[in-house]
């Protein structure tokens, strides 16, 4: 059987994204896809799921919200953290060859983390990437320079107007979608935001993939702890394709079924 056991890793570098959010790069490389997650274990404390910001090396962005994340924030360079994974379904890029056009990514709060991995993949594959970063307030806006460094165009929205557009990320998404053509829409963030992105995608018949979060135990689809409506967030997700009916004439470049809208790259589970 394929094992799913924690493997030891060490903190290689630490970057503060804000007063509450910290990024840790580890001395561990995984073969993983954007949207996949790992379970991070601190012996004697807990094991929790985190999206991969990058897989080579494993990079995690963690907000200090409770005992586990506080303990992770207390780690110094060289300290140990155990990693199980990669786990879960992943984002797929549109199956358009060669890539022509742009992708719109919408990240709410810390939901920007897996979209960073996706941007990196998409940009190196030849896609243009527009990234909307939405947050409650200026202080919670993270990753702006990271996305810009990758080569993505970044728009910022805050609920209180303290930075960028005053409003929610999906309002800006709607405006950008009105202005320009996008091949696909991607979202990660709080569920109300994902709901809004899904509505938007359906109304525009635009293929979309969204990443969900839930409390998890096994992480590989057998315990049922994270199930919602028969869908296992950890195994069938965390990335979910929005079920859209694509008028064939409008999207003749894309093959007919939803499955064919995105490239299927097999991954090696280790």
């Amino acid at each position, binding site marked *: 059987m394929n094992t799913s*056991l924690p493997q030891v890793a060490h903190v290689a570098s630490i970057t503060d994204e804000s007063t509450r959010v910290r990024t840790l790069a580890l001395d561990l490389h995984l073969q993983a896809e954007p949207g996949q997650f790992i*379970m991070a274990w601190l*012996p004697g404390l807990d*094991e929790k799921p985190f999206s991969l910001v990058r897989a080579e090396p494993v990079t995690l962005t963690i907000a200090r919200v409770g005992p586990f994340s506080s303990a992770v924030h207390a780690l110094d360079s060289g300290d140990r953290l155990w990693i199980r994974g990669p786990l879960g379904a992943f984002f797929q890029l549109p199956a358009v060859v060669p890539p022509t056009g742009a992708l719109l990514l919408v990240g709410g709060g810390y939901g920007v983390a897996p979209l960073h991995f996706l941007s990196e993949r998409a940009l190196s594959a030849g896609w243009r990437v527009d990234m909307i970063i939405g947050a409650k307030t200026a202080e919670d806006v993270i990753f702006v320079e990271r996305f810009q460094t990758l080569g993505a165009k970044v728009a910022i929205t805050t609920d209180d107007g303290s930075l960028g557009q005053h409003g929610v990320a999906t309002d800006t998404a709607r405006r950008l979608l009105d202005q320009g053509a996008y091949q696909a829409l991607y979202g990660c963030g709080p569920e109300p935001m994902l709901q809004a992105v899904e509505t938007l995608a359906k109304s525009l018949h635009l293929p979309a993939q969204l990443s969900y979060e839930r409390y998890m135990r*096994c992480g590989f689809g*057998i315990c049922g702890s994270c*199930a919602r409506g028969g869908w296992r967030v950890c195994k069938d997700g965390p990335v979910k394709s929005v079920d859209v009916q694509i008028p064939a004439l409008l999207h003749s470049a894309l093959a007919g079924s939803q499955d064919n809208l995105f490239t299927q790259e097999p991954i090696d589970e280790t």
Partner: protein
Amino acid sequence: LATLGVTLCGVDLPNPLILASGILGTEAELMARVAQAGAGAVTAKSCSLQPRTGHPNPTVLAWEHGLINAVGLANPGVAAEVEELRRTKTLIQHLGTALIASVFADTVEHFAQVAAQISQADPDLIEINISCPNVHDEFGTPFAADAGAAAEVTAAVKEAIGGADGHADGGADGYADGGKDSIPILVKLSPNVADIASIARAVEAAGADGITAINTLTGMIIDVHARRPILANRSGGLSGPAIRPLAVRCVYDIYQAVDIPIVGVGGVSSGRDAVEMIMAGATAVGIGSAVYDLGPEAFGRILDEMVALMTELGYEHIEEMRGAAHREPVQAAQ
């Protein structure tokens, strides 16, 4: 072509494959998905009178030859579970899939109470989990470790759900179909005992309608870098391919000891494994850890393999195979 229907404690199942408790049994829609995938019955995750959050993570791991888990019987409590089971029934009824509730408790009295309450959801069967190995610190030695305690729970549950009369000697198929008889109970036994057959005899005498065997074996995995057990509970229940021969032996021993039907559970992941379990004496076969490798689709796949193997072996019905390994060997046809 071989037919797969079986009757378990008077309940007709479209096939002998049962989703084992603790796997995917947390939610109505998920159980419906398993039913859709071909399961003959689905067992819900064990519930208790009060909600439980279970153990902290890590709780479930996959190692080279199976899984190890110490979820710690996390569940929403019996009141919420009754609603979930009612929802499940409405979703799976049209498929003919049977619904098995699962309950556990810390005392004999609480076992009786939780079983009585869960019967309000009118499941087809109730599994009495007296053998979870992962709550030892809290609940002490499982009831399944002692014949007297196992029998006491069984008798109390039968009385509480209104079936203490006359069923104990009835055997597998002695019930009238469709009547408002009490819901038959399966008592789930532990392999972590010296003589599982004696426990089986005790629960049969106390009125059990059937036996589920086996629950997981206790095990431990230590991370050598952390120098400590990985599971937060330290020890956990082993399941999967590694325990299959042990489960087959337990079912074989129990079959010789009792007349009530057995649900054989432990590491079954192919049609061959399921046929083996039935030849050991199982009426139905639990599928759990196989979902790790095969997903919910495990059920359809194992059924297909069973049909092919039965055809190859010359069987038309499941019953012809049941206990075949106990019978005098037929003269080898050379």
